[in-house]
């Protein structure tokens, strides 16, 4: 499979998220991964971008969200970088785990979807940016 990386960057608004989502679907399809896996990766990144635009940037269009896509021999990772305030990632993950047992909840299932679709989620605070890395391991054929 090809290895390498690319960084995508958008203005922080919901209307731009589909651009990244569709680009990621195309990129990972070239590895190749199945249509289902490509969709799941697209959805996980879209959910992370939704959170960045709404919760980190509070819909401020002047800010930018970046997604660093890294293709390695055995995994694909997506690092979503926003300029929002630091937050308690572990607490957010615990809440997401609880919410998964309440399917009828109206909001707040984005992180739970990411948890379900990706193998690892990591959070780092670097300078004034949040880095959330989503990792999906590739099955060996």
């Amino acid at each position, binding site marked *: 499979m090809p290895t390498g990386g690319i960084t995508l960057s958008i203005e922080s608004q*919901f*209307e731009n*998220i*589909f651009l990244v*989502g569709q680009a990621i679907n195309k990129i990972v399809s070239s590895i190749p991964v199945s249509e*289902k896996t490509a*969709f799941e990766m*697209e*959805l996980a990144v*879209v*959910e992370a971008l*939704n959170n960045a*635009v*709404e919760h980190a940037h509070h819909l401020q269009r002047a800010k930018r969200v970046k997604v660093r896509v890294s293709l390695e021999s055995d995994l694909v990772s997506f690092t979503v970088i926003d300029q929002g305030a630091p937050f308690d990632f572990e607490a957010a993950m615990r809440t997401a785990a609880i919410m*998964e047992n309440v*399917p*009828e*909840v*109206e*909001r707040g*299932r*984005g992180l*739970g*979807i990411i948890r*379900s*679709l990706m193998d690892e989620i990591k959070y780092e605070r670097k300078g004034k940016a949040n880095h959330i890395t989503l990792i999906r391991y590739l099955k060996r054929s």
Partner: protein
Amino acid sequence: MKASPRLEEQFEGNALIVKLLDSRFDAVSAPVVRERFAALIGEGHHRIAFDISEVEFIDSSGLSAAVWALKRLGDDGKLVISGARGSVMSVLRLTRLDKVFRLFPNTGMAVAALSD
């Protein structure tokens, strides 16, 4: 810039079919759909089949809009989903919303269920 989401509405029997004509039900289209559901429910439409057969991509925002409408109707009405397929059905199952909504493969079956 994406265009505003397009909705089509049609009466069949005593049910209203609301069809989302866009392929993505996401953070852009969800608020518009939610607003339309609010207006329709406010006008007294209490038996609604939400046709998402054209939708190829759904995220948590789309799911939230549908759950919001279901809760808004509460015990006074019914909202069912028709036409979910492929990856959209996978997301409904992943989030266990397939247990929350009544799902039908097409609007005919959805309307029949609403007429019970």
